[in-house]
C-alpha cells in the first residue's frame, strides 16, 4: 500500500478568542490525499480551509487527532523541505528582486546554490517573469502571484499547497496555472489546491472535499459531484401542437416544460427517453440536440453548504 501524501484523522483545532470564547475551527477532519493527484479543498469563508492548510504545514498545532505529511509529522523540517506552499496573502519585502527572493526561499529549504543557479531562471521563465528586471515592490498583484508560485516550486517539492493560486491573474494567466498544475501532476507531484474558483477546481482536481464549519461535508471526485440530475434538454427544430401532444403522451405525468423550442423534462429512465425521441421523429420533427442536465460544482457546493441535499 502506498503512503498517502497527506493524511489526517479526526483532526481538530480550537482557538480561544480574546473574550475567552472557544472556536472549533476543525471538528474532526479525516481525509487522505494520494500521491500524484490534485486535491481540491473548497468551503465558505471561515469553514476552516486555511486552518487545515496551516496545520498540515506545521504552522499551527492541532488540538486533537493526527496529521501526516509524506508519512512524517508536518512540523518536521526534513518533511517541509519536500513541500512547497503558496499562501493566500503574501507579503513580499520591498528590498528583494525576484532572483534574490527565490534564492532566499531556496536557501530556507536547503536547496544547493548550484541547483538554484540553474533552477531560478527556469522558474522565472515558467511563470513568465524572466524578462522582468524591476524590484518586487513595483510588481502588480498578478506578478506577485506568479512569483509566489515560483517560490513554492523552488525546492522541486513532492507536495504543493496552493492557496488561491489564480487570485489576481487574468484569464490567460489562469490557464497557464491550470496547465502548470496538470504538468506537475504528470510528473507525479501531489497538489493540494484551496480555491474559491470552483470552475478551476472542477477542471483540474481528481478529488474534491467540501469543508463546512470545520467538518468534511462531502468528499468525492468531480464527476460524482457533477453527476446528472435526471433531467434532459431536448431541442427540436420547430414547435407546434402535434409535437406538444406527442411529448405529453410519452412523458405524462413526469415534470416537463417548454422554453421556445427546448423541452426540459425528467424521463423515468433511459428507455422512456428513447421512446420520446422515437415518437418525436415519427411526428416528424428534426431533433437538434439532446443534452443531459448536470449539476455544476457550484450548484452542488451551494446545496451542500446551504443545507439541502443535492
Amino acid at each position: 500500500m502506498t503512503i498517502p501524501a497527506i493524511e489526517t484523522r479526526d483532526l481538530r483545532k480550537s482557538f480561544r478568542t480574546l473574550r475567552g470564547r472557544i472556536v472549533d475551527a476543525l471538528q474532526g477532519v479525516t481525509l487522505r490525499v494520494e500521491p500524484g493527484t490534485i486535491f481540491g479543498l473548497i468551503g465558505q469563508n471561515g469553514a476552516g480551509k486555511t486552518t487545515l492548510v496551516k496545520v498540515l504545514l506545521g504552522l499551527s498545532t492541532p488540538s486533537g487527532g493526527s496529521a501526516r505529511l509524506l508519512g512524517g509529522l508536518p512540523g518536521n523540517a526534513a518533511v517541509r523541505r519536500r513541500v512547497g506552499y503558496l499562501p493566500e496573502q503574501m507579503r513580499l519585502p520591498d528590498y528583494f528582486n525576484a532572483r534574490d527572493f527565490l534564492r532566499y526561499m531556496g536557501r530556507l529549504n536547503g536547496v544547493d546554490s548550484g541547483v538554484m543557479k540553474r533552477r531560478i531562471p527556469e522558474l522565472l521563465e515558467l511563470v513568465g517573469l524572466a524578462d522582468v528586471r524591476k524590484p518586487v515592490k513595483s510588481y502588480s498583484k498578478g506578478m506577485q502571484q506568479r512569483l509566489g508560485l515560483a517560490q513554492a516550486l523552488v525546492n522541486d517539492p513532492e507536495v504543493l499547497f496552493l492557496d488561491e493560486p489564480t487570485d489576481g491573474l487574468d484569464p490567460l494567466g489562469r490557464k497557464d496555472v491550470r496547465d502548470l498544475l496538470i504538468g506537475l501532476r504528470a510528473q507525479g507531484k501531489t497538489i493540494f489546491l484551496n480555491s474559491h474558483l470552483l470552475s478551476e477546481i472542477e477542471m483540474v482536481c481528481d478529488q474534491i472535499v467540501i469543508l463546512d464549519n470545520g467538518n468534511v461535508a462531502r468528499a468525492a471526485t468531480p464527476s460524482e459531484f457533477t453527476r446528472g440530475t435526471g433531467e434532459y434538454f431536448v431541442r427540436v427544430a420547430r414547435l407546434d401542437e402535434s409535437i406538444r401532444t406527442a411529448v405529453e403522451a410519452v412523458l405524462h405525468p413526469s415534470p416537463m416544460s417548454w422554453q421556445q423550442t427546448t423541452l426540459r423534462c425528467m424521463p423515468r429512465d433511459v428507455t422512456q427517453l428513447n421512446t420520446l425521441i422515437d415518437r418525436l421523429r415519427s411526428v416528424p420533427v428534426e431533433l437538434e440536440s439532446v443534452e443531459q442536465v448536470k449539476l455544476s460544482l457550484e450548484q452542488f457546493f451551494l446545496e451542500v453548504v446551504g443545507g439541502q441535499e443535492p
Partner: protein
Amino acid sequence: MFATYMNSLHETLSRRVALVLFGVAILVTLAFNWLVHIRPLANGMSTMIVGAQLPAPSGIAVPAVLESMLRATGTLWLLLAIFAAAPLLTSSLEKGWLELTFSKGTPRWRIFLGRFLGGLTLYAFTFTLATFPLAARLWWETGVGTWRIGIALLVQTFSFAALLSAAALVTLPQKGVTLPIMASVAIWVLSPSLAARQQAYYRLFTSHLARTIVDWVYRILPKCSELEDLCISLVQGGRMTSWWPVWSTSVFTLAVLSLTLWQLSRKSF
C-alpha cells in the same frame, strides 16, 4: 541560519533608520577626529589638544579621549540601534511573510535567531564605525595602545544583546515594533537607577517587601550602566573588579532568548 542572518543584513541596508545610524556614526567619527590634534615633541613623544583644552601628554590624553568617546557613543548607539534592530525581529513575524518563511525547511527558531544576530551585527558595525577610526589614529600617531577599544566593543555588544533579547520576547505575543522598543528602552533607562537603588529607591520604598522587590528587579534585569562603566574602566587600563554584571546579564540574556525561541517554536500562527 546563515541565510536569515544575511537576509537580515540585506533588510537592514534597505531601511532608512539603519542608514541614519550609519550616517550618524560617520559624523561622530569625523567630529572626534576633528576635535583631537596631536603635536609631536622633539623627544619622540607627542602631546594632544582636545578641543579648546590645554595640551596634555598623549599617555594621559588618549585614555581620556577614549572615555569621552565611549560615554558619548555608548548611550547613543544603544538607543539608535534598538530602533534599527527591533524591526528586524517584528518583520519576521508579519502576516504574509511568516507563512512563507516558517513553512520552509528551516526551523523557525533558527530564522528568528539569525535575525537576532543580524541586529547585533548592526550594532557592532555602527559602534566600530564610530569609534575605531579615532582609536586607530590615536595609536598610529601617538604609539599609545588603543586595542582595548576592542574589549569595549565586545562588552557593549553584549549589553545590547541583553536589551535586544528583551525586545525579542515582547515581539511574540503582540504585533508592532513599539512595545519591543519600549521594553528595551525601559530596561536601559532603569539600569543606572537600579544600580544605585539605595539612593534612588530606598527613600521612596520604606517597607522591607518593597525594597526586596527592587533588589530582585535589579538582580534579574541586565546591568547596562554597570557594563558601560566596566567598559570605560577597561579601556582606561583598569582591571576587572567584579564579574557580577557580566554573568548576571548573561543569565538574563540566555534565559530570555531561550524562552523566546522555545515559545516561538510552539506558537500556533
